C-alpha cells in the first residue's frame, strides 16, 4: 500500500504537479497579503483561459514559440550545455526571416520554407558560434551566449531602422510579404466571402477570425517528438547523452566531445531559430521592431525546459501551461487591477519547487522506512 503510493509520489509527473500546486498556493498567499481575494483571482484566471474558444486557441498559439525555445534549451541540457542564448538565437532568426520575407516574393510553396529556413539557419549559426567558442577555446557557453543575446538585440534595432526596411512613423519594418505567412487562410478569412461564412458559425468565427489561427503548434509538437527520437533512439543522441552525463568517460570511449558540443549548439540554435521564424510568419503583424528590452521568448524557454525536466515531450505541456499563465496574468490586471507580475511570482515559485522536488523521493523514502520499522 505505502509502496505504491510512494512510487506514485516519486514519479516526475507527480513531483511537477505538486510543484505547480505549491506555486498556486504561494501566489494566493501573496495576493491575500496584498489585499486581493485569492479565490476571485483564481476564478478570473481560469475564465481568462477557458471561458471562450478564442482564449484557448490564443494560449495554444502563444505557446508555440516557447515550446520550441524550451526544446532548444532542453536539448542543450542533455549534452550538459546551458543555452541561455536561446533569446539571441530567437531574435536573429526573426531578423533573417524578416529580411528574406521582405526582399523576396515567390509563390508561398517556395516562399514559406525559404523564410522559415533562413530563420532556422540564422539561429543555428548563432548557436554554432557558442559551440565553436566553447569547444575550440573552452569559453563558457553562458558568457558567450549572454553577449550574443545583446548583439542580437542591437542588430535587431539597427535593422529595424535601416531606411530600406523601416516603415515610416512606426518603430519597426514593413510587414513581410504575404506569401511568406503561415497564417491559416489569411486572405480568405478577411474577404467578403470568408467573413459571411464565418458569421454563421460563431465558434469558428471566434477561433479563426479573431485570432492569428495557424498550424505552427502542430509543427512544434512534431518537432518535440523528433527531438525525443533523436535523443533516445539514435546513435548520435546516445553520444550526446553520454557526453552530457560524463564527458571524460565519453572522450575515453572515443567519442569526440568537442565536435558534439558544436553539433548540439547548432541543433539547439536551429530550434530557437525555428521558434523565431514561426513567431514571425504566424503573426498578423509580421514585423521586427526596435526592442527596448528582451521579449523573453528564449528566457521563457529556459523556464519551460526546467519545468519539463528537460523532457522533450514535457516541453509541450510545460509550454502550454506557461503560456496559459502569462495569458491569464494579463486579464488579472485588466479585470481586477491586480499586478500581472503575480504570474511571474507564480512561475518563479513553480520553477523553484520543481528544482526542489528532487527531495520528494528522499522524504518519501524516509517516511516509508519509518513506517516499515514501526510495523516490523
Amino acid at each position, binding site marked *: 500500500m505505502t509502496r505504491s503510493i510512494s512510487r506514485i509520489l516519486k514519479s516526475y509527473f507527480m513531483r511537477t504537479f505538486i510543484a505547480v500546486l505549491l506555486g498556486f498556493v504561494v501566489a494566493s498567499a501573496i495576493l491575500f497579503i496584498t489585499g486581493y481575494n485569492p479565490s476571485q483571482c483564481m476564478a478570473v484566471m481560469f475564465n481568462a483561459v477557458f471561458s471562450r474558444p478564442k482564449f484557448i486557441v490564443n494560449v495554444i498559439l502563444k505557446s508555440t514559440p516557447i515550446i520550441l525555445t524550451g526544446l532548444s534549451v532542453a536539448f542543450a541540457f542533455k549534452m550538459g550545455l546551458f543555452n541561455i542564448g536561446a533569446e539571441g538565437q530567437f531574435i536573429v532568426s526573426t531578423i533573417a526571416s524578416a529580411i528574406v520575407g521582405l526582399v523576396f516574393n515567390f509563390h508561398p510553396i517556395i516562399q514559406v520554407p525559404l523564410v522559415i529556413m533562413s530563420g532556422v539557419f540564422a539561429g543555428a549559426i548563432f548557436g554554432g558560434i557558442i559551440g565553436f567558442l566553447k569547444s575550440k577555446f573552452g569559453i563558457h557557453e553562458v558568457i558567450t551566449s549572454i553577449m550574443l543575446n545583446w548583439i542580437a538585440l542591437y542588430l535587431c534595432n539597427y535593422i529595424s531602422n535601416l531606411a530600406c526596411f523601416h516603415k515610416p512613423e512606426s518603430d519597426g519594418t514593413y510587414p513581410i510579404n504575404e506569401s511568406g505567412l503561415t497564417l491559416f487562410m489569411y486572405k480568405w478569412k478577411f474577404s467578403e466571402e470568408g467573413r459571411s461564412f464565418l458569421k454563421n458559425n460563431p465558434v469558428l468565427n471566434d477561433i479563426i477570425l479573431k485570432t492569428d489561427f495557424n498550424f505552427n503548434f502542430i509543427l512544434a509538437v512534431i518537432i518535440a517528438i523528433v527531438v525525443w527520437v533523436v535523443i533516445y*533512439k539514435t546513435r548520435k543522441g546516445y553520444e550526446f547523452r*553520454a557526453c552530457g*552525463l560524463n564527458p571524460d568517460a565519453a572522450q*575515453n570511449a572515443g567519442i569526440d566531445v568537442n565536435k558534439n558540443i558544436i553539433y548540439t549548439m547548432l541543433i539547439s540554435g536551429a530550434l530557437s531559430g525555428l521558434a523565431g521564424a514561426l513567431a514571425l510568419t504566424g503573426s498578423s503583424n509580421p514585423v521586427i521592431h526596435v526592442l527596448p528590452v528582451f521579449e523573453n521568448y528564449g528566457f521563457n524557454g529556459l523556464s519551460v525546459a526546467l519545468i519539463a525536466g528537460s523532457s522533450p515531450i514535457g516541453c509541450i505541456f510545460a509550454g502550454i501551461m506557461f503560456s496559459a499563465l502569462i495569458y491569464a496574468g494579463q486579464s488579472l490586471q485588466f479585470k481586477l487591477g491586480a499586478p500581472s507580475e503575480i504570474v511571474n511570482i507564480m512561475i518563479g515559485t513553480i520553477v523553484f519547487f520543481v528544482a526542489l522536488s528532487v527531495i520528494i523521493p528522499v522524504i518519501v523514502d524516509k517516511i516509508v522506512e519509518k513506517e516499515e520499522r514501526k510495523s516490523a
Partner: protein
Amino acid sequence: MEINKDYAVQMRGISKFFGNFQALDSVDLDVKKGETHAILGENGAGKSTLMNILYGLYGADGGTIYLNGEPVYIKNPSVAISYGIGMVHQHFMLVEKFTVLQNIILGNETTDKFGIINMRKARKKVIEIIKRYGMNVDLKKKIRNISVGMQQKVEILKALYRGAEILILDEPTAVLTPQEVDELLEIIENLKKDGKTVIIITHKLKEIKKSSKECTIIRKGKFVDCVNVKDESEQSLAEKMVGHKVKLLVDKEKATPGDVVFEIKDLNVKSHRGVDVIKNLSMSLKKGEIYGLAGVDGNGQKELMEALICRLYVESGKILINGKEIQNTSTRNVLDSKISIIHEDRHRYGCILGMSVADNAILEKYREKPFNANGFLNYDERDKYTEKLIEKYDVRPSKCKYTKIRNLSGGNQQKLVIGREIENDPDLLIAIQPTRGLDVGAIEYVHKVLIDLRDKGKAILLISLELDEILDLSDRIGVIYDGSIVGEFDQKEANEQNVGLLMAGGKNNDEEHI
C-alpha cells in the same frame, strides 16, 4: 572484557545504518592505552565507519563509547578533539596553497588580544613536537610542493598539535612508497614510546604484523575477532578477514613472451599547465606478458595515459602499436588500433553512472553493427550483448541490464568495465589500478582474468600504485620516476626494496631539513 580505565578506547555494541543498509552491527572494540591497535577488514567492511563514529563524524544508531573507562557522548569532531582524539583521513584535508606551518595551526590559531596570529609561539610548539617524534618536515614549504608522505606527516602533526592522545590513521600506507612506510612505522613507534595510543585502519596484512600488537577484525559490519598479532600468520588473518580460505599468492604459469607489440620511443609530453612531465620515456611490451609500471602517484602515470589516448599533445617521440604510429591522432583511432583501457577511476573515466548497465556495455561499440542500424540504436542487440557480458563476467545481480550502473557495487561495476574492454579483443590491454576499492574476492577474480588474457598471448600494461599487486602479477616491472623509466626488473629479481628505492628517486633519499 570489563570496562576499565587501562583502556584508552572501548566501544560496545556500536551499530550504524545508512538508509536500509546496516554498516555496523553491534561492534565491540578495546584499545589498550599506549598500544598500537589495528583494525582489519575488507573494503566496505565498516572499519572507517567505526572510526568516523569515534571521531564524531557520524552518530551511532546504537552502542556506547568509553574513553579511559568513562562513558562519553561524542557529538562532533570538536568534542572528539577535546577528548584528545585525532584522526588522519585517507584523503588528506590540507590547503594546497598554505605552508606546512599554516596548515598545522589552521583552525587552532594562537592569537593575541587583537586577533593577530602569534606565529612565533606556534612555530616553537610545532618544532618541539617535531623533535620529540623525529619527524623531518620543512615548515616553510607549501603543501603542493611536498610529497604525499610528507603531507601525511603534516596531518599527523596537525593532530598532535591539537593535543591528541589517541591517534586514528585511516589506511595510512595506501599512498606511500615502501621506504616511506618504514619511516611512518618508526614515527608510530616513537608515539607509542611517548604513551600515545595509535589505531590503524588497514587491509594490508604485512603492516599489521610490523606495527601492531593487537588487531580487531571486522567483516561485513560485524565483529569477528580480536587477536594477538604475534599468534597469527598473514594467512590466518586474511582468512578471518574474508571469511573463507584465500590464496594470497597469485597462481600463474611462467610467461612465454612473443614479439614486441607495443612500443614507446623517447616520449616527451608537457602537462596541461605546460610543465615537462614525461621525459624521454621508452618502453616496450611483448605479446603474452604483463608489464607492471610501478611508481608513486604523480610521477607521470596520468600524463602518460593521457598522451596515449591523445588527450595530451606528444612533443616528440613515438607510440607504436603493431608497428603503427598512433601518437597525436584521436582517441577513436587509438581504440580502433586494438588497444583497450581499464581506466583508473571507473566513476569518472570508465563508465557513465547516470546511464543503464546496457548503455554502458556498448559505450565503445555503439557505432558499430549490429548496435548501430543506420543511425538508430538497436536496443535488442544491445540487450542481448549486455546479457552475455553479465553472464560471462559474473556481474551481479544478474538481472541488472536496465539498472543504472550507479546502483551496482564497485566490484560489479568493475567486472562490467573489464568485461567490456576484454570483449574488444585488444592486442594491448592497459589496466590502471584495476583493483582499487575492490574486496579480496573481486581482486582475485580480476587478477585471474588478467592472467588468462596474458596466456592468450595478449600484452598487458598494469599501472598500479599498489606495489604488492605489481610484484605479484607482473612478468616484467618498470619503475617510473619523474616522467622516465628509471629501471626495469624481471619478476624474480624484483622485490620491495630494490623497486621501492627507485620509486622514491634512487639513492638520493635525503629528506628536507628544518
